[in-house]
């Protein structure tokens, strides 16, 4: 049986349901991604980022080469659980199931310079971000054995 096509409103309603209906699941990182130190560390409440051993540049996602100095020597370092907003947008069109709608996505910069997309932490979904806003990480289990760092205003 085909699953019904969910509109953004249905997805939001299902999430709000106190019980009975299982919330729709947003896309998850692949098994291969989950095995990287970033996602592994998130389960322990830490932000862990790949860093070049030669020029110390941080990069996310992990890559075999440092785009800054072309070194292939790298290790993983823990960075503070803080970030700053570099850009943001808010999805009113639901491209995926399972997100609180409208759904805000942040472009953030971590300490050390790595950039990534991120989401607002639970209870802070309706915050209107601004460029330069300081953030604090919170670690939320988004599926069994998958923890995602999310962010609230610091």
């Amino acid at each position, binding site marked *: 049986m085909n699953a019904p096509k969910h509109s953004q409103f249905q997805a939001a309603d299902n999430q709000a349901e106190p019980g009975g209906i299982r919330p729709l699941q947003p896309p998850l990182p692949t098994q291969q991604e989950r095995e990287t130190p970033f996602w592994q560390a998130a389960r322990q409440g830490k932000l862990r980022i790949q860093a070049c051993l030669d020029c110390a540049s941080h990069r996310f*996602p992990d890559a075999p080469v440092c785009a800054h100095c072309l070194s292939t020597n790298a290790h993983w370092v823990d960075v503070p659980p803080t970030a700053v907003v570099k850009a943001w947008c808010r999805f009113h*069109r639901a491209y*995926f199931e399972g997100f609180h709608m409208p759904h805000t*996505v942040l472009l953030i910069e971590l300490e050390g310079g790595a950039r990534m*997309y991120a989401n607002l932490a639970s209870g802070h979904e309706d915050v209107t971000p601004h460029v330069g806003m300081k953030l604090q990480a919170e670690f939320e289990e988004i599926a069994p054995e998958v923890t995602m760092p999310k962010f609230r205003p610091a």
Partner: protein
Amino acid sequence: MSHSPARSAAAIAGIGTTTYGVHPGQNSYSLGSAALRAALDDAALGINDIDGLIVCRIPDYQRFGEMNGMNPRLAFGLQGQGRMSGVALELAVANITAGYMNTVALVYGNDGKSAGVKYGGLKDTYGSGGAAQWFPFGMTSPGAAHAMMFTMHAERYGTRAQDLGMIAKTFRDHAALNPAAVMRMPFDMDDYMAARYIAEPLRLLDYCLINDGGIALIITRADRAADRPQPPVYIRGLGTSTVLENSSLPRDDFWRPALQAAGDASLKMAGLSRDEMNGLMIYDNFTPTVLFALEGYGYCAPGEAGAFVADGNLALGGSLPANTHGGHLSESYMQGWNHFIEATRQVRGQCGQRQIPSAQNIHYLCATPIASSIIFSDTP
């Protein structure tokens, strides 16, 4: 004064298009083939006159050549990204300048509408092809990436939603004068502001229109173009530059260094200044790229493009009419190719009601990780 050997070495001798819209039962091959025949007719040339074939968004050059009974000396295909239209034109000019080719056919076919192509969601590959890694965060679609870049621009410079609205409205007003445009109903600023958000701060009317269509151009040696029935449109200046480093995330420099380099190179090649441009064709997948292009290519100082468009400069009758066909926002999202067609028609003087008076030089600007700046001219 010596100048680049590529300056006006090549000219557009023929253009062809299908109609734009929904073409059920067609695909990129049939749409490209129809456009190619129209372009050859326009140039009064035959299939055997083509010695170079570059197809774009048509999956296989071999199948396309087989279908059209061609055996050109050189044939290959480019990815179906919009930024590749400028690359294709540059490759044609480079090959002609070098003497490897005399006549190159550029053929584009897009069946995205009928094929139900989606630019957001689980099939998204925008960026460096690594879009899927961001799906768990709910990030997807080129529109959202441009929304992010607009938040950077807006918060740094005070650029307003109404500035984007003015871009969308101006191009729609132009489309109203273009029978080939898919969307021709004018709207006002209230309509724009009332349109629903897709990826806030971008609204529906900030987005281009996915449609089916085919486009072809016949590029030939300038001396040969002079013998064809249509007035030659010279590729007088051309510059390309890239910014691929850190390009899968929205860049807060709006690709400016690459745009500047490409723009300066094209003006130097053409031996022309910005003041000598009679109109612009601006790659407009989403309204914010128009701002980034105007600033990056030096028509506005950084941060001033919002006020520049709000003053009506891009409208027909304004100081720098842009996208007189309606652009990707209102004619059709033909990924830069329909901008080449409109530039050619403007320089030929074939635009009817939307003709720019004495359109001698038209400047194409593309603000993407591959920056293309092309100057179309009636004079070599």
